[in-house]
């Protein structure tokens, strides 16, 4: 079997590795730029198991387990670190919502800890809690190194014989008799039996050419990074009041972002001063000693938002035979990709749909079985 994966982000790389490790056949990965050009190296590099919905929480728990297991095999240390997530809550409604959902999380074995403002001050003396009503701390959450995870998959996949075509965009999928037949690339037509679209924010460009429309759209998200400082912020701090988040990388840089209105679509990946100012104001209010930290760099990437803020994997029954997708991660794809790769590989090779994958099929939009996920950060 000849399988082509379109997109060299964490999604495509994980799928490539998982197919190769199952000896799926001849696997080609096409990337229009350098490997991991897309959102995968532009992310905040955090993972969490705390989602409003059981589907996503379950999926994330298993996904991180997969990554940790794989870490021992990778040539690269994915630098997984459980620094926790700390949600700062500002009203009863928010607290209620977390309390309610914590029941589900407890059932899954990932219950969090509720903190009073004094507890927060004691544990994290640098946080200004004057207007904070409480906090929710998820000790199971943490960070990883997005470049190293990608490199890790990349080198494992390469060793297993995956053929990488870098700087090779796929322009079109050629379908006949409702079967995928060929890919049109700048170096010519390539025959294929299976195509997996994992082209992130660009996936719709290819899907729509063959008449498939899924309710997704790219949303540009910007990030600020400061110069490195002596490590002191363990958790990712999410300010549910201002919509800002901030954390520190193990390299010492302070990284964060804030809700900032940007029109949807594939708009240029640049950053606005106005956005940086908004973040600076929110974050120096929350952590006053950050005032003298210096913003060293900013960048932007796309969240590929789906209508229910959850990823889409698999295929629709009426789609051309051999066509699969794995995208629409809605801003939390890095943590989901390890399991997506595994389940999708099984699905492609056996035709069976693994239990954990079922809620995430593309058919859910038509069947109105949306996942009610609202906990999106940034």
């Amino acid at each position, binding site marked *: 079997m000849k399988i082509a994966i379109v997109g060299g982000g964490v999604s495509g790389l994980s799928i490539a590795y998982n197919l190769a490790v199952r000896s799926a056949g001849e696997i080609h990965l096409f990337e229009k730029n350098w490997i991991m050009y897309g959102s995968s190296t532009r992310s905040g590099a955090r993972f969490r198991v705390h989602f409003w919905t059981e589907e996503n929480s379950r999926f994330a728990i298993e996904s991180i387990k997969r990554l940790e297991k794989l870490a021992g095999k990778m040539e690269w240390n994915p630098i997984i670190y459980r620094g926790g997530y700390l949600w700062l809550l500002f009203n009863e409604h928010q607290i209620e919502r977390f309390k309610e959902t914590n029941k589900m999380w407890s059932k899954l074995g990932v219950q969090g800890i509720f903190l009073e403002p004094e507890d927060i001050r004691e544990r994290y003396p640098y946080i200004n809690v004057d207007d904070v009503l409480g906090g929710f701390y998820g000790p199971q959450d943490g960070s990883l*190194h997005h470049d190293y995870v990608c490199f890790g998959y990349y080198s494992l996949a390469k060793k297993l014989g995956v053929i990488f075509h870098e700087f090779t965009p796929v322009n079109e999928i050629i379908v006949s008799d409702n079967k995928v037949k060929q890919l049109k690339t700048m170096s010519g037509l390539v025959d294929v039996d299976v195509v997996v679209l994992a082209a992130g924010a660009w996936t719709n460009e290819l899907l729509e050419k063959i008449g498939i429309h899924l309710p997704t759209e790219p949303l540009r998200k910007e990030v600020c990074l400061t110069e*490195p400082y002596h*490590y002191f912020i363990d958790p990712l701090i999410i300010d549910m009041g201002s919509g800002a988040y901030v954390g520190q990388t*193990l390299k010492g840089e302070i990284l964060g972002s804030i809700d900032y209105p940007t029109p949807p679509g594939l708009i240029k990946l640049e*950053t606005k001063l106005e956005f940086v*100012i908004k973040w600076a104001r929110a974050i120096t209010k929350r952590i006053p000693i*950050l*005032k*003298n930290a210096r913003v060293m760099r900013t*960048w932007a990437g796309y969240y590929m938002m789906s209508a229910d803020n959850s990823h889409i994997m698999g295929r629709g029954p009426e789609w051309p035979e051999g066509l699969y997708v794995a995208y629409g991660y809605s801003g939390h794809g890095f943590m989901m990709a390890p399991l997506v790769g595994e389940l999708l590989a099984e699905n492609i090779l056996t035709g069976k749909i693994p239990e954990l994958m079922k809620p995430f099929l593309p058919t859910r939009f038509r069947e109105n079985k949306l996942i009610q996920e609202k906990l999106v950060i940034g």
Partner: protein
Amino acid sequence: MSLFGDTIQERRGSRVRIFFRGVGVEGYTLEPVSIALYHNGFKVLSRSKKLYRVRGFYSLSPQDRLVLTRVGSEYVNPCEVFCQEGQEAHVDLSVPFLVKLFTPLLDGYFQHRRLLKNKILWSLAADKIKKLANHPRIGDIEAEKTGRILEVKSDVVVVGGGLSGLVATYTTSKLGLRVLLIDDSPALGGRMRYDHMDIPGISMPRENLLQDLLNKVNASGNVSILTRTVFTGFFEDHPTAYSEYDKVLYVLKAKAYIIATGLVDVPCIFRNNDLPGVFSGSTVLEMVNYYGVEPGRRGLIIGLSQNSLRIAEQLKRLGIDIVLVSHSKPEEVRYDLSKIGEYVGSVKEIQASGKTCVERVNIIHDNGRDEVKVDFIACSAFSTPDVRILNQLDSKIVFLDNVGFIPIHDEYMHLKDNIFIAGGVSGSPYSILHLIEGEIAALSVAYKLGVKDAEPLMEEKIREYRLKLSEMNLEWKNKIFEISISGLIENTSFSYPPTLFIEKPRRDAFICFCEDVTTKDISRTVYEKGYRTLELVKRSLGVCTGRCQGRLCMVNSALYVSYLSNLDPNQVGLTKARAPTTPIPLHVLAGGEGG
């Protein structure tokens, strides 16, 4: 604006006493702390982040930020903070026990050694590792200050107050346009500020030329000037500039921009090239000629560029002994070097050594090996346009062999949209060209902004420019203009990195000083991992991601990767430096609101 003082004494300001690690030393109010400390024999200003190597300053540019030293309660770049009475500076020279123990492991790959791949070992190690890097402590930083954001409107912004920038400013203002001139140094003049030799091709002596330009610029009612202000790049909504001195972020609103930021002396790659006492060539001149502080008594100058020869000659006149070294065979050298100093040619490898600063240099060349005792080293083998601002704009930057990475522009000095360039940043090697380019850029801007009569003047200058280029045999400039029209880049052959002075990759020959990345690390990335684009090398090792944002390492990394992998540097490529190109404090960005 600070005027060009007449004497060094005036430029240095009044004498004050500052303290370094508790020891009182003499400094001057207009002298950067780094210079005062160096002058008093304190050359180690910080330790590097990962390997804890002793480090001094490489250049005086506020954009480099290679060392941060604690002054008062804040970690600052000692090159952009000026001496004040009673000021206390401090460097912690201790090395954590664990770092000492594991130094042999601490290379660019320490993050993914087998030991650390075990889940439990890793989580134990991570708790230690996260605190081991030598970074400033944010807790030590005063949180009281509040900076400001100011919006400045102008017809034109000129970035860089060297020859081409001054000419561009003056020419634009004469045409009735309002100009804002921004420079990151304490005073205008660019290289002319400290390079005291006359400029070939310009009959007026350097001093008069500079004074004349400054007078014209100052006399014009249309010009505003911001010195000690770094242009920090183009955000999507606004270009910005930041003054650390005034703690002000300027939001720039102009109809056109002329980038005239000159050239950066690229660090040379040799063993222990990170020792205190290794400087950029221009910095050595700035030290002696502008601040009156000698870099040492006997120095090694690397390279045989115009820059090297000018530095050597001026140092020699001050009685400083010079040893010149370069790749060129002695018999191929066209200059008479005997009056300047000793010359060692056909150099293959340079190894500096010394405990806390440069003390000796071992030179391996075709005919054997020499050891010379020197107390400083000037890197002037190769200069490059600082391409970071330009590649933010997605403008094409092309490598030409024996020239370097050049931003693609047309002969109207137009880069793209409303951005123009002039002078060294366009790659032009000679001052006489910088002068004409300054005028052309100004006239093109005026033409674009609809100034009457600008067009004939512009066309006339272009004719003069073409003539000069052909007189000077600068074929490659025409190639650049052609590419600006055709968009076609030919394959380039690549000879040898002009800054490379090691025979094989070494763990003590650094490419990126901010992130402690060595030639050994890069060679392993290229050979073992097979990464051949700068984007991937950057992501695997962290080159171009440190405080200088690639200003000092981008070109060296790209050329070194090309050299190792035998690839055209255009294939290896550069990486995008994103705004801000120089870090801006959050309290300034918050503009007094928030915290």
